[in-house]
């Protein structure tokens, strides 16, 4: 980008100090000001109501009660309770993510490849949309009504087979009970994400493989699954992040019984237990790091899948 003679008529190279300002001015003139004003509200909102509170909170993780800079809060995270909460959260998220992804994939394949009727598909997709948003108190209550001590299914199994699942060791308000409950929205999320990927498996790939001598199983092994793999891994990452950040269902179902990070954080905000805001902030930062990592993995895998299938 050069400054033409027209811009600076009297000035020659002998007055270099005036040139950078003019250059900057013409660069500023090139910006689309009216458009920038149009998008300003969005960015202002994002800054004030999204970025600033998060940054302010995270900043608080680095100070102590007196307001001095410290890394002490992170040392406090190493307590059995908090470390245990992170471990438990990771276990829970991994369990519900893996099981949810596997079952979800199976169902998505069944519906995507097997059902031709658009009406049934539409109903399935709508239901998935509803179920993936169905969480918190309503979900917890629904599962208590089903698998609680006096739940419909619990009672039915006792009546039909004589088995008392609670006597056998099952408890809804426990780690596995929570995992099963989480599946109610994890599986639909999987179906929602994998369905387009499965629909994207073009029929002519299947036919080309067939003509080249591949059996159905060989097609899935060499072509079908490898193509779906990035989407599936991405879904796993997303399910993990989703489960890690979820609190409403856990709180409603198990109260403080299952020790996971969001519950601990909730307690901090509520001031129920320790009322140590800096610790809460450190916890929040820990959560954000885990979520950011999982979401980044999801995005990278999604981009990779999209690039192949351009």
């Amino acid at each position, binding site marked *: 980008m050069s400054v033409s003679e027209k811009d600076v008529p009297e000035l020659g190279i002998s007055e270099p100090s005036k040139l950078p300002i003019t250059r900057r001015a013409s660069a500023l003139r090139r910006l689309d000001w009216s458009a920038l004003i*149009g998008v300003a*509200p969005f960015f202002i909102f994002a800054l004030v109501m999204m970025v600033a509170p998060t940054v302010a*909170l995270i900043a608080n993780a680095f100070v102590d009660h007196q307001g001095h800079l410290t890394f002490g809060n992170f040392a406090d995270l190493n307590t059995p309770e908090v470390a245990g909460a992170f471990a438990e959260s990771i276990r829970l998220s991994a369990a519900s993510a893996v099981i949810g992804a596997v079952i979800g994939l199976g*169902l998505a394949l069944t519906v995507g490849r097997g059902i031709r009727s658009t009406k049934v598909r539409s109903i399935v997709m709508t239901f998935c949309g509803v179920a993936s948003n169905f969480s918190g108190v309503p979900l917890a209550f*629904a599962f208590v*009504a089903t698998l609680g001590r006096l739940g419909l299914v619990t009672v039915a199994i006792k009546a039909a087979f004589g088995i008392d699942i609670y006597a056998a060791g099952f408890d809804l308000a426990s780690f596995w009970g929570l995992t099963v409950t989480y599946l109610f929205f994890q599986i639909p999320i999987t179906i929602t994400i994998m369905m387009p990927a499965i629909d994207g498996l073009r029929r002519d790939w299947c036919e080309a493989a067939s003509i080249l001598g591949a059996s159905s199983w060989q097609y899935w092994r060499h072509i079908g699954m490898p193509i779906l793999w990035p989407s599936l891994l991405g879904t796993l990452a997303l399910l993990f*992040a989703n489960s*890690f950040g979820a609190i*409403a269902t856990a709180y409603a179902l198990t109260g403080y019984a299952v020790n996971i990070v969001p519950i601990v954080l*909730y307690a901090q905000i509520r001031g129920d237990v320790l009322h140590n805001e800096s610790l809460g902030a450190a916890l929040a930062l820990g959560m954000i790091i885990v979520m950011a990592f999982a979401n980044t993995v999801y995005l990278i895998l999604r981009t990779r899948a999209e690039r192949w299938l351009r």
Partner: protein
Amino acid sequence: MIKTMHLLRWTCLSLGVAFFLMPLISTAEFSLSLRRDGYSFDAYRYVFADPDFISSFSYSALIALCTIFVGTILVVPTVYLVRLRLPWLRPAVEFIVLLPLIVPPIILVFGYVRMFSSSSLLPLTGNSRGSDILLICGYVTLALPYLYRAVDTGLQAINARVLTEAATILGARPITIIIRIILPNILVSVLSGAFLTFAVVISEFVMASLLTRPAFGPYIQRVGVAKAYEPAALVILSFFITWTAMGLVQFLARFSPNVQRESK
């Protein structure tokens, strides 16, 4: 061979359907069992007669509408302008839209409580109006990924750039273009985003409870602790509200306009 595949398929599907329907059936059955001697809609009657139900539901509905309004006003011009005039801002927008997924609602509301508490510049948490604003902002943040995705997809489907160029050559000014050409064509996408937002807001609990707002989510939780059969009725109701909203989204998808892409 084909028969076994068919059998396998239908078994999988039945098991899946069973898993998802059982909780709903159990809850529905429970909600109808208020009277010892048979099924009745008494639980529902009590719920509808409860003044708290009406007030909390209307509150949440109103908040949802405000959220949709604010969200749409923020998102639509931004997506359109970034697409057409400021493509270099796209990564920034995509990052912002990603933030709600990385920062879960509980952390966001934690941040609000700290930043807007009584001892800060904007003491919003102090009064109820201020808290309402915080709640709306929180919900707009939650809904942002959905709204952005819906409008962005809509603009892409109608090939907004080509339409804008055609309109400009015919003499239209930017505001006219947005109002008379772009908006009507992405109405379906905007409505889809709106219904999704409505569904999310109505059943949300964490933010509303931590900001101590009289919303529908905390109401359900209160009833869940206090009563036995009414919560079941509320669960079924909330499920049907969400189902209606989602059904409308799917229904609207049928009407989305699709301009033919130029062949490469």
